[in-house]
């Protein structure tokens, strides 16, 4: 019995010590854990293996990748921090609560010295006004993305249905309403419009794009906006404007006409999913997503196809925020220096950036050069064709994030895009401007009670108004009075004061 006990003790000790000894063995590559947003793609492991081979060679480390699905931004993502999950780098964006989490020290501050030492190319290559956007209370908590991206709402309609019902081409809101009527009256089993998790794009199409306003993306519940063409804008709460009321009237009329599905408040699918599943005839989303939805329809093998249009005319558009896809280092990270080195390497080395963003050239039908030529006759390497296994986020193989580098940014070939998509993409880009308030982040740390109460009111009264389920005559007044009871005026005062201070100190 004693021998057995001793043997068991020895085994237990060995079981405890052997992994520990292994972990500290000198010269072994270090594991660096990244948490990204999205889903693991079919060939993810193959691509990651290729990346890790190079990383081991250059930095003696390798990446382990975990994903947080888009649908779990509000649940799993905050739990990673609350549970002190072991991670060395994590995706961050204004829509994942970057500013709130930074104010609570969930992310490590990235000092200028750190960035210059461990990510020198990225530090130099990224303009200072882009770094400024990542600052929360004057400190940098993320490496921003470098990406030409237009996320303003555009419109995609089922072209096959337009032809089927002999509807004239859609060029403006009036002709769109003719199309919506035709779908409502003739097509059973397809809703003209169904808004779900992405329900804010109709505000872009019907209001913000044309009148050149931008909303505060960090805190949508406080409904603050500013004029993007004003070099020193004064932010305002758009709930009190006539333009907002006019937009609500339009949406309410659409809802009453049956053009907006009654399922919009309970639907949790994205516009792209609804389109791919044949449930809707019109989607309002960014141009890239509409182009991807068209690809889904093509892959389904049916006769369906999309037409794309943009109603913003020649209005200026706000360039997409650098905080829309970043990498932050959580405060519990064990290898912050390595994370910065990895970012610097993958972002700025052409071969590595191709791997990260596009996958493996020619292999397993992941991607190919499309063959479009530059003016000097050389192949334009940024115009590519994605193969059938390029995954649903073709062009961002591993992640939307700080790995993006606009020098190597890929765009789909004309052949594989919706007719007009490339023109809209470049036209919107030519009209994109920056505004100083993009770099302003409201410090809400002293107003968390109001922010939480406003979020509750916004969800309960705001969303039904925005989707036309509540009559704005009376409904808007009730919404505003509930918002004011929850502290809206206090927040507006604090916000405008902070913004004025920011403008004064950054003039």
């Amino acid at each position, binding site marked *: 019995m004693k021998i057995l006990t001793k043997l068991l003790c020895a085994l237990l000790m060995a079981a405890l010590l052997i992994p520990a000894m292994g972990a500290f063995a000198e010269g072994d590559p270090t594991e660096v854990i990244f948490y990204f947003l999205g889903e693991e793609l079919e060939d993810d492991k193959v691509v990651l293996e290729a990346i890790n081979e190079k990383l081991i060679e250059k930095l003696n480390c390798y990446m382990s990748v975990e994903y947080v699905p888009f649908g779990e931004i509000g649940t799993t993502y905050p739990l990673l*921090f609350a549970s002190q999950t072991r991670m060395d780098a994590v995706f961050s964006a204004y829509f994942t609560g970057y500013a709130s989490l930074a104010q609570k020290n969930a992310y490590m501050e990235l000092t200028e010295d750190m960035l210059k030492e461990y990510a020198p190319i990225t530090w130099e290559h990224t303009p200072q006004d882009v770094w400024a956007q990542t600052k929360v209370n004057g400190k940098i908590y993320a490496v921003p993305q470098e990406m030409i991206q237009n996320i303003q709402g555009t419109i995609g309609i089922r072209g096959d249905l337009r032809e089927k019902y002999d509807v004239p081409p859609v060029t403006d809101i009036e002709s769109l309403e003719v199309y919506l009527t035709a779908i409502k009256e003739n097509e059973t089993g397809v*809703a003209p419009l169904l808004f779900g998790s992405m329900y804010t794009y109709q505000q872009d199409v019907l209001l913000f794009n044309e009148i050149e306003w931008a909303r505060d993306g960090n805190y949508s519940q406080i409904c603050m906006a500013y004029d993007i063409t004003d070099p020193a804008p004064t932010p305002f709460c758009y709930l009190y404007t006539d333009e907002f009321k006019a937009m609500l009237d339009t949406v309410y009329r659409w809802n009453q006409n049956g053009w907006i599905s009654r399922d919009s408040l309970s639907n949790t699918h994205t516009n792209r999913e609804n389109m791919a599943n044949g449930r809707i005839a019109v989607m309002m989303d960014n141009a890239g997503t509409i182009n991807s939805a068209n690809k889904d329809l093509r892959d389904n093998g049916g006769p369906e196809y999309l037409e794309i249009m943009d109603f913003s005319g020649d209005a200026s558009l706000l360039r997409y925020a650098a905080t829309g896809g970043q990498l932050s280092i959580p405060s519990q990270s064990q290898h912050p220096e390595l994370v910065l080195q990895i970012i610097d390497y993958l972002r700025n080395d052409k071969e590595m950036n191709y791997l990260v963003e596009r996958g493996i050239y020619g292999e397993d039908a992941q991607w190919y050069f499309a063959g479009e030529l530059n003016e000097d006759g050389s192949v334009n390497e940024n115009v590519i064709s994605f193969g059938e296994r390029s995954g649903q986020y073709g062009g961002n193989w591993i992640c939307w994030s700080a790995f993006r580098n606009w020098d190597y940014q890929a765009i789909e070939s004309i052949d594989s895009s919706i007719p007009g998509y490339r023109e809209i993409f470049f036209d919107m880009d030519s009209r994109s401007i920056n505004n100083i308030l993009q770099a302003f982040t409201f410090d809400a740390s002293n107003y968390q009670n109001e922010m939480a109460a406003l979020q509750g009111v916004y969800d309960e009264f705001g969303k039904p108004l925005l989707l036309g389920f509540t009559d704005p005559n009376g409904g808007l007044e009730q919404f505003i009075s509930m918002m004011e009871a929850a502290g809206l005026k206090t927040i507006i005062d604090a916000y405008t004061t902070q913004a004025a201070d920011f403008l004064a100190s950054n003039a």
Partner: protein
Amino acid sequence: MKFKLFGNLAYDLRRNKALMAMVLPVVAYLLVFAYAPMVGAVIAFKSYNFTSGIFGSPWVGFNNFRFFFISGKAWQVTKNTVLYNVAFIATQNVLEITVAIFLSEISHRYFKKITQGAMFLPNFISWVVVGAIAYNLFSYDFGFINNVLTSLNAPKIDVYTTAKYWPHIFVFLSAWKHVGYGSIVYLAAITGISSEIYESAALDGANEWQKIRYITLPGIQSTFFVLLILAIGNIFRGNFDMFYQLVGNNGLLYNATDVIDTYVFRSLLTTYEFGMSSAIGLYQSVLCFVTLIITNAIIHRVSPENALY
């Protein structure tokens, strides 16, 4: 007295080693998962900061409770939480007892097994799946029910924008999911009643109804009271999974469907204020504790043998 208490404890430990060993895992479980985390309740009075942690973060007094009351929703969501729980407790207990009695009366072995299995099955289906099934049934444009109604030229029903349907849906689905499992507890209590009592009653000429009325129901009375007290102990907690998966972020239904847990989840989704969510958790716990004490006191007065203590 203190000395005697510990003296008795040591004596009991020595004398009932096997019993104490059996209860040890439960004690350890409660210590680790119920008592130790109570220390974390302190976060309800702090402004949580990731680098300072629970104990290093600054104190904010009762400030974390304020958002719940300035929103104007505190009374409504508290009322909804309690009323739904009362409805669930009432309907489910009645159904569970009824089902348990029927099952105990059924003599056909296979029919009994199949019935029991079919009723037990929903307990293993997650609310996520139930939410998806409900959406595919009730969806206005794509749901099964409305497709059938359309094919019959009948008007569609708009479940997802009409609040009045939802109390019935919740009570029905909650019962569908839990009655099978709950009836097992009552069935066990009925099985524990001596068969000799039923035989004596039969000899005295009692019919089936009389046996149920005068033997079975009194026999499961103590089980009923224990389950009732335990359920009331959670009366201020909403079943987050059920309410959130079935309703989601549908503002038109909140008046009828919002419970404390869903309201707090939505409000704090973007602020990451763990102090505030803990504050509301504490608010629920205190109310549950007070209710449980009062309920037990009432039962103690009415039927002392069925009270917890």
